[in-house]
């Protein structure tokens, strides 16, 4: 039987991808961010997950507003790297797990989450940045992945509670998979950021740290927050934090925080938290 061995919440800021590709890991401004993932990589090396379910959003690279899914899940053997407008990044294609993905899609739909199933799906920084922060891909990605895309661009978005319940349904789906696989769930995006208007670049570290506390110890308290409240606290684009609730919903109520970190250099609060079942 498959089981969830833990969850990671991670920002997916695209400039991290640029810094990674330019080899800026040791530069004074970027080193705190990249070093923060060392304990996460050590934890991953210990638990050795077989599969990563990555909850992310596409940023207008693969999906267009002519038809826009609320939740879309990959069910393919491989996922190509998308061109987001500045060329295709030099990363290996992402390895999927077809049988597990198909099981996950069936299980979630029969659990009343009406998904868009994607047999072809290109992934971009929302998915890729947390992956290359957490995993060394030089010999190929060490885990198989399931991309799970959430609409956080075009309102109406799924509610915070709906995202949390989707995570709970993922937990049930994993337990029902017959093979003995270890699964990690990665919730991506956030934290506070605002990319339009006169408040461009404003960050809210106090709200971000409160969110981290609640995510660990009292996630139910976050599920009643409206999109309005979330955007007032975290900025319009900070609404991405609802994707962290998918990850948290997939874990049991009692968790142990393995590691957490927060860094806010430019325009986005870069949060990081690793949780495992207590």
């Amino acid at each position, binding site marked *: 039987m498959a089981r969830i061995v833990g969850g990671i919440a991670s920002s997916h800021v695209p*400039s991290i991808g640029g810094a990674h590709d330019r080899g800026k890991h040791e530069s004074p401004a970027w080193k705190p961010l990249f070093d923060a993932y060392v304990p996460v990589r050590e934890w991953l090396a210990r638990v050795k997950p077989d599969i990563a379910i990555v909850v992310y959003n596409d940023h207008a690279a693969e999906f267009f*507003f002519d038809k826009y899914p609320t939740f879309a899940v990959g069910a393919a053997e491989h996922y190509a790297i998308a061109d*987001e407008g500045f060329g295709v990044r030099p990363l290996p294609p992402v390895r999927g797990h077809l049988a597990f993905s198909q099981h996950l899609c069936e299980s979630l739909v029969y659990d009343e989450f009406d998904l868009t199933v994607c047999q072809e799906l290109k992934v971009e920084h929302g998915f890729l940045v947390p992956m290359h922060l957490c995993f060394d891909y030089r010999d190929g990605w060490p885990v198989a992945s399931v991309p799970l895309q959430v609409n956080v*661009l075009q309102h109406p978005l799924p509610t915070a509670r709906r995202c949390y319940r989707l995570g709970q349904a993922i937990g049930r789906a994993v337990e029902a998979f017959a093979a003995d696989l270890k699964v990690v769930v990665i919730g991506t995006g956030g934290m506070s950021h605002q990319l*339009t208007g006169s408040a461009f*670049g404003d960050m809210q570290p106090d709200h971000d740290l409160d969110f981290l506390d609640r995510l660990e110890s009292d996630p139910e308290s976050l599920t009643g927050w409206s999109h309005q409240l979330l955007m007032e606290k975290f900025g*319009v684009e900070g609404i991405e934090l609802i994707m962290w609730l998918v990850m948290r919903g997939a874990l049991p109520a009692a968790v142990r925080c393995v590691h957490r970190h927060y860094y806010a250099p*430019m325009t986005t609060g870069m949060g990081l938290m690793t949780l495992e079942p207590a």
Partner: protein
Amino acid sequence: MQASQLSASRKIGDSHVFDLAMSHRGLRLNRMCHVLNDATGRAAFRADEAAFLARFDLTEAELALVTARDFNGLLAAGINIYYLIKFGVATGNGLYRMGAQMRGETYEQFLVSRNNSGAV
């Protein structure tokens, strides 16, 4: 059903919330920017901007905003922020330069206001 998720104004401060009305309004602009995801589209844009833009049935007002590189105006016209970023890449305007314009600051003033502007 959960209580209302958005305020009646559909705004956070002076920023628009990208809802279905905004997405409908911006569909032509966003379709134009979606093509910039592709190297062929970017090359066509750079080779002959007017001919490229003519493919997307933009209104006169939309064309004027594009030509003026009026980032706030484009957002008000329904361009999604993530499509604006692609337009910025194609026109040599990085996100932080566009953001400085939105704040009414120079790029240099904006950088000074950051906690660690080495992380550009």
